[in-house]
């Protein structure tokens, strides 16, 4: 062998990815935990560079988000729109429709909800009816914003990533127009308060009867989110419609072969996906701000993409990851450094997605090509 080494090409050791034939629960859990710790460590380095003590910062965040019942309540408030938007996004992702437009769909939902709250609901409208109308409007607004890229995709083959992404900016501008223009309260970037009967009930509203819930701002939107979760969970797992989505996501060609109308399904799913994000917008204005403000969403629709991905598009997973990310948002508010939440989100996603490869594959190092040949020779 040695005599021939001169003629040998330089080559890297070959790294091969080998699919794991079976998923083991313990390997999955261990890897996920390890990756989370790695993400925290990387975030810690940045905090250290910024002159903070990562341990103190992380502890404060943890306490703020999960340390008290009010903290948990705040976390749930932040989780609510995340759950709804994530459910929508993961529904589309399951069919490999990359709906990046949840943010815009959420804003449109908020906008339509506001329209109903300000112009349809009167002080005499029964509360239940008002909320129902607003939820319908919110869903419809988001659905319309999801329908457009879905229809473009089905009819003209327009890439839904681009069209749904672009519609986010259209939605934000439209919303700005209304909150600074026709619906503006004295020229500020907000509308007047909604009538009281269109506010979604919060836990703290029942403090007179149950003093323990005083100060807890969790609102009806969470119920809405859980309801949406329950419906989707059942639909995805055992309905014929859910089967079509799963099949179309795995192999569109086989779906067509099985008699599924792919174009129609594409439009349905994008519309539904948008509608769910629209409900997130409705829940925010009706449950938290009780008016529309131009910064109604701190990017829930984008965070939802991260959450959906980390939850591997599973509705149950979405619930948990959204809760954790809600905590991250609350924790970041506590240390009053808005950038930290996004920084951590970015790092966690990056580490998890690249690490996700390890869940599906194991890495094998082969020798160099020379060695492989050598053995044969």
């Amino acid at each position, binding site marked *: 062998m040695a005599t021939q080494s001169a003629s040998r090409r330089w080559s890297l050791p070959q790294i091969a990815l080998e699919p794991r034939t079976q998923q083991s629960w313990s390997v999955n859990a261990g890897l996920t935990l390890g990756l989370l710790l790695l993400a925290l460590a990387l975030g810690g380095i940045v905090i250290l560079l910024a002159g903070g003590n990562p341990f103190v910062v992380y502890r404060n965040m943890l306490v703020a988000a999960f340390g008290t019942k009010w903290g948990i309540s705040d976390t749930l408030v932040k989780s609510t729109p995340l759950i709804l938007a994530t459910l929508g996004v993961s529904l589309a992702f399951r069919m490999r429709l990359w709906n990046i437009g949840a943010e815009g769909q959420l804003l449109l939902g908020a906008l339509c909800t506001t329209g109903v709250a300000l112009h349809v609901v009167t002080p005499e409208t029964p509360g239940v009816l008002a909320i129902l109308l607003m939820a319908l409007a919110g869903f419809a607004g988001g659905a319309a914003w999801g329908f457009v890229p879905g229809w473009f995709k089905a009819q003209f083959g327009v890439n839904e990533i681009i069209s749904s992404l672009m519609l986010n900016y259209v939605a934000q501008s439209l919303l700005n127009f209304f909150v600074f223009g026709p619906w503006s309260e004295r020229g500020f970037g907000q509308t007047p308060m909604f009538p009281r009967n269109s506010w979604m009930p919060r836990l703290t509203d029942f403090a007179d009867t149950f003093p323990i819930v005083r100060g807890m701002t969790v609102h009806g939107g969470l119920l809405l989110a859980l309801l949406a979760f329950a419906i989707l969970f059942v639909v995805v797992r*055992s309905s*014929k419609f859910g*089967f079509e989505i*799963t099949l179309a996501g*795995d192999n569109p060609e086989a779906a067509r072969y099985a*008699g599924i109308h792919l174009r129609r399904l594409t439009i349905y799913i994008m519309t539904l996906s948008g509608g769910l994000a629209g409900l997130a917008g409705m829940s925010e204005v009706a449950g938290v701000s009780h008016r529309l403000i131009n910064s109604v969403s701190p990017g829930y629709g984008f965070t939802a993409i991260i959450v959906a991905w980390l939850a591997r598009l599973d509705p149950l997973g979405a619930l948990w990851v959204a809760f954790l990310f809600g905590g991250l948002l609350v924790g970041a508010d506590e240390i009053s450094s808005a950038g930290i939440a996004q920084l951590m989100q970015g790092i966690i996603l990056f580490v998890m997605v690249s690490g996700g490869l390890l869940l599906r594959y194991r890495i094998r190092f082969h020798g160099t*090509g020379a060695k492989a040949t*050598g053995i044969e020779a």
Partner: protein
Amino acid sequence: MTLVVNISPPSNPAPDDVMVQMQGICKSFPGVVANDNVDLEVARGNVHAILGENGAGKSTLMHILSGLYRPTAGDIWVEGVLRHFSAPLDAIEAGIGMVHQHFMLAETLTVAENVILGDRSLGLRITPTQIQETVAALAAETGMDVDPDAYIWQLSVGEQQRVEIIKMLYRGARLLILDEPTAVLVPQERTQLFRQVRRMAMAGHTILFISHKLDEVMTLADMVTVMRAGKVVATVPTQETSQEELVRMMVGRPVLFDFEKVPVDIGDTCLRLEKLQVRNERGVVAVKGVSLEVRAGEILGIAGVAGNGQGELAEAITGLRPASQGKVEIEGLDTTHSTTREIIDAGVAYVPPDRQRTGTAPNLTLIQNLALKDYRTAQPGQFMSRSQQAQRAADLIEKYDVIAASPEMPARLLSGGNLQKLILARELSAPIRVLIASSPTRGLDIGAIESVQKTLLAQKAQGLAILLISEDLDEILALSDRVAVMYEGELRGPLDAAGIDVEAVGLMMAGSSDNLQST
């Protein structure tokens, strides 16, 4: 890595004019023996054709020679030197370059840039003019007219093929392997390619080309090696043979399985096509006015080399592709413009030619894959019964002898034969009237082939109308009651299978213009 291990000459010393010698080449894939003890000798400066039907092992053999596959056994001598290739680059170092059917060019780069792509000897700095001159010189030498500055996306398919050839010559290929080079070309480009191939051979290059078209083998090649079922049937100079003889070598051996064709009462017409015309993706008419009838209890076989419109025909019948003219009737019901779902509901089952891409969803479980067609109808209402699906899957897996670790395993882990049995199980378990079976046994091992074919015959005996589309003439002849040939979108025949002239059918498949005659 090229490793010269053994300089000793081959057992029967090759003369100087032998470019390549392959000895005892075996290659098996899971469940399939693609090459079985193949010997091949190619003389320098010759144009040498490898002829055979699909699945005969031609491509596998060439992939071994070009370093893409490693043989399970056997030796390769290139110009008298024993070589072991572990990658295509090793083959190129030894002077062997292959032009694949699907070109490997970077669309957004120029011709010259594509030619030097991957050439490490150039270092970090490249001088554009020098490269252009090199490429232009190579183009001129071989009579290949290509502008070195043109971008690949601007070129026609024929021009892209020329770039591939120039690329291989630039890398020092003395032996060029062309994989069905005319499959992608229009007639004028074909003539041009032939001229260029001749010119290269005159210049001392050796050309090996894979083909299943008799006329081009006879026109272009000096020598022809006929392969069949992984083995070499014969190597003969084209001067000393005829198309008829080549056909006999390709197809004219005893039929593999001699099934007893149980006489079945032929019933009513279940599938009727009337002057059906179908266009392919590029808008070209791929099926040109095909009319046929298939009756209950009958198998109509359509033979033909792939790409002559059979795929489009099957897709038009099953509603996966619109028909541009003509009519499809299922049991008297006009389904020409029906959706796939309506056609499924009308009782048409379809075994697609591509089991992974169309026939199954790779990551879904066997249970889910078996429910692909009946998930809507098995249970009333909007929901499916998982336990019922699982029960049915277990029954079908047992009945059709699908060998699987678990019904919950993803379909992608099944072997080809078992995947095909899974598809058949699904398609045949529904209450159906018509079956379109497209290459149902392609790539399967002997045992699986027999099992699939027996299933088809059993279904026919029960009164199913079967349209069998296959490139495997043996299969068509063994199973069909009537045989037709599809060539360039037109259907010839059908004729009764009993007493049919096999060689005439073979010639028709290869494009001979003689009419199909029954003897």
